[in-house]
């Protein structure tokens, strides 16, 4: 049982040299060899994640990802499962907002067979009707089960409230109603659009053979269907005023508070300054202002943190804490005052020094494991960042001044337009929340927690 929460994983920069193999066909293949352990890792990344879900089909990219594992032209689901287990392999598909990743790991002696199978699953999925039916039922049940996880539910409701119909507000796993509507024809169409050679990136690490991976990546790229284009992603609409909702769930003794606003791009000129400003305010460390004020001084919440989420368009900056119901109004009011104070006066010289020193000294952890190196590369490629974005990260932080941080915070933060979402038992917290948020009880939006 972890007693301390270190907050959200903030994207960490990369220093490690990854060997980019130049390919005449513009194939994107990165390989990092390390044969100390007999394990091989393969990642196939497709740009175009949940935000590419067509209107009315939220969750289809995630659904399609899992369906890749459930039947191909040559193998049934049972056969695929058995092969993977016999090889001691792990293979899964992870869907995020901007991209989909097929992640594989296998004992290296089985790598050639493993690669052949991945190619077949990705290029020639059969989407059997019986498996679609089964997965639909599993997925819907999973969404229902998620309703008993207050933190996950709260984050989902906050995103929907903040993004007001923009794809960033749609849950990656979709809504119950829309997942229930997914048909085989939808999957075939989405697969053909999604798996386009120009959107595929390959990353291999561990005990891998370079020539084997190159040959595999070439073969797979040539066969990728690539029919049609994905819709472009517009920026989310800005928010004109403060809005507050309560996600009403019975019998809560604790609330989940989410407070936030639209974020910025990682390529934004103020990114480094705001990175440090956020680190000092609530970026997951115990010395952060939020942690000190909410947990250490008052014991209100086990965790209190702030974090950015990034994408191809500005996503979000949000604060999360989970006080006892009795402390909800006070904790909310105090958090809002802290955000206002942060905008007005910024961070102190000492907070700036500590945040900067800590961030620069911890640069060694940017690339200390193959998993992080792969992750950094994926972020650079899928979010359109420079190839050296992470390797030059600490150099950029080094140049940031205290006044630049505070100026950036002043321009970025919009306390008057914050979106506030609180999961709790509405009839017991309604007046306190209204008071804490500085709005009238009548203006609060009450959302049933089971609403799709």
């Amino acid at each position, binding site marked *: *049982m972890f007693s301390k929460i270190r907050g959200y994983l903030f994207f960490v920069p990369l220093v490690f040299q990854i060997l980019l193999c130049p390919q005449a066909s513009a194939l994107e293949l990165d390989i990092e060899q390390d044969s100390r352990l007999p394990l091989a890792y393969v990642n196939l990344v497709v740009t175009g994640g949940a935000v590419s879900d067509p209107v009315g089909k939220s969750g289809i990219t995630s659904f399609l990802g899992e369906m890749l594992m459930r039947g191909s032209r040559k193998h049934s689901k049972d056969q695929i499962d058995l092969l993977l287990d016999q090889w001691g392999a792990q293979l899964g598909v992870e869907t995020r907002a901007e991209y989909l990743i097929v992640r594989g790991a296998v004992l290296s002696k089985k790598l050639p067979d493993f690669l052949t199978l991945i190619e077949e699953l990705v290029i020639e999925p059969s989407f059997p009707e019986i498996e679609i039916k089964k997965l639909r039922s599993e997925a819907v049940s999973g969404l229902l089960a998620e309703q008993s996880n207050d933190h996950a539910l709260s984050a989902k409701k906050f995103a929907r409230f903040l993004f007001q119909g923009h794809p960033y507000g749609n849950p990656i796993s979709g809504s119950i109603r829309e997942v229930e509507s997914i048909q085989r024809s939808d999957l075939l169409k989405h697969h053909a659009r999604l798996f386009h050679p120009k959107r595929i990136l390959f990353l291999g690490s561990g005990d891998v053979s370079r020539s084997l991976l190159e040959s595999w990546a070439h073969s797979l790229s040539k066969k990728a269907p690539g029919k049609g284009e994905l819709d472009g992603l517009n920026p989310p609409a800005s928010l004109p005023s403060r809005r507050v909702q309560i996600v009403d769930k019975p*019998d809560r003794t604790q609330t989940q508070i989410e407070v936030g606003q639209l974020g910025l791009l990682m390529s934004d000129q103020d990114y480094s300054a705001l990175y440090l400003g956020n680190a000092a305010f609530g970026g997951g460390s115990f010395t952060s202002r939020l942690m000190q004020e909410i947990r250490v001084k008052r014991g209100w919440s086990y965790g209190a943190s702030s974090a950015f989420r990034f994408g191809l368009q500005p996503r979000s900056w949000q604060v999360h804490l989970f006080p006892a119901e009795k402390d909800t109004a006070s904790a909310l009011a105090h958090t809002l005052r802290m955000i206002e104070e942060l905008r007005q006066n910024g961070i102190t010289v000492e907070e700036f020094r500590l945040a900067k020193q800590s961030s620069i000294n911890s*640069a060694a952890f940017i690339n200390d494991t193959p998993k992080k190196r792969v992750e950094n590369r994926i972020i650079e490629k899928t979010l359109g960042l420079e190839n050296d974005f992470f390797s030059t990260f600490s150099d950029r932080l080094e140049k940031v001044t205290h006044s630049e941080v505070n100026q950036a915070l002043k321009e970025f933060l919009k306390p008057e337009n914050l979106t506030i979402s609180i999961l709790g038992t509405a009839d017991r917290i309604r007046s306190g929340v209204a008071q804490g948020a500085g709005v009238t009880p009548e203006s609060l939006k009450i959302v049933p927690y089971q609403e799709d």
Partner: protein
Amino acid sequence: MKTQYSLFVITVGILATSCSGLSIRQNRSDTPQVLKVAQGIEAKRYPLKNGLRLVVIEDSSSPTFAYQTWYDVGSRDEQPGKTGLAHLFEHMMFKGTRDFPEGEFDRKLEEAGAEGENAYTTHDHTTYVQQLPKERLELIIRLEADRMKNLVVNDASFATEREVVQNERRFRNENNPDGLIYQEIYGLAFQKHSYRWPVIGYEEDLSKMTAADAREFYQKHYSPNRAVIVVTGDVDADEVYRLVARHYGDLTPSQSASILVSPEPEQLSSRRKTLRLDLQVEKLMIAYPIPSQNSEDMPALDILQMVLSGGRSSRLQKALVETGIASGAYAYAASSKDPSIFLFGVTLQKGQKALSAERVILRELERLSQEGVPSQELDRAMNLVEFDYFGGLESNSERARFVGHYESQTGRLENGPLYFERLKAVTAEQIRQMALKYLKESRRSVVVALKKAQK
């Protein structure tokens, strides 16, 4: 949609008295034992005179290291009325000492660029973890040595931290059906032993706990002879030893703590409990008593777990998920210092009943007892075990966790690789015998969680 546990690190190996088959270079008393953990991974063990044990694995692939301190105390060592004290005390370890006032520990580590500074408490042990850039070795040694003996537990900071833990409890248990079900299955399967209460403790006990309780706990359980330090990464082992000896060497060992742990009587009949919770789909947990980590039966029980729920083609996956009954199912042999439980956990699909899942599990166990495990299925489980083993040795912190676990909880890190060898030697017949011996109706405890009626 399914959970898979690693056999290594989370679960525990057996206490071996023999080191046969392992490569060990025994040295003079002032130099370390060199022990092979896996191909290309060697650990050096340095015992100190005050009982502290230090294990170092050198690896310069990244200019960082992991530092872990394993204390041999967990919720198992608590007494009724004081449940949750081990975990609450773990929180207090981040408060001030005589030399470093409250907040300084965190501030110094953060300034140094520490990553993943944290701690966790289990039934059997409490572990403090950090990762740091390689230049900061002496800093962490100095800070950890300091808080091993000089912690100051004052009433005000204790009261605030108790509030934090009560809030953590709301998060993990009161408002979390999975936490509640887990608490209930342990409470049902154990009637006397301290594993029956949750690591985080009961609310009524936490609310009465005082700073004096924490001070007493500290004196009793935190001392060099009850700790193992593991350092893995870009360090020189002899240099680590020299610094550890300098900063910890003067700490005096404590008297061995007299801990009264009630043994769990044999379960003679099945037990059952039904909960009504805020759920949209039903949930089920089943537990059977199994022996402690020292038992010769543990490797076969671990392979049984792998056969039942490891990988995508496991028996539970096929019998429960593929058939549309459950959205997720797992089996888990929770090996511990004292006899523990073999757990089944199931999340049902929409409209499906927990009772159906229970029937399916019982049928699968019956089939396993009668028909055993075909060789192909055993091979599959062995491959998964092998992947698990190497996968748990990849990063500095994973290696530290593996080594720390075996050294602290079984007395010898050699038991880690040895346990891997014993897993690979398990036969199909041994697995069948485990099902027959332990997964019996009279030893079963069942918790069913149903949807609470809407008001």
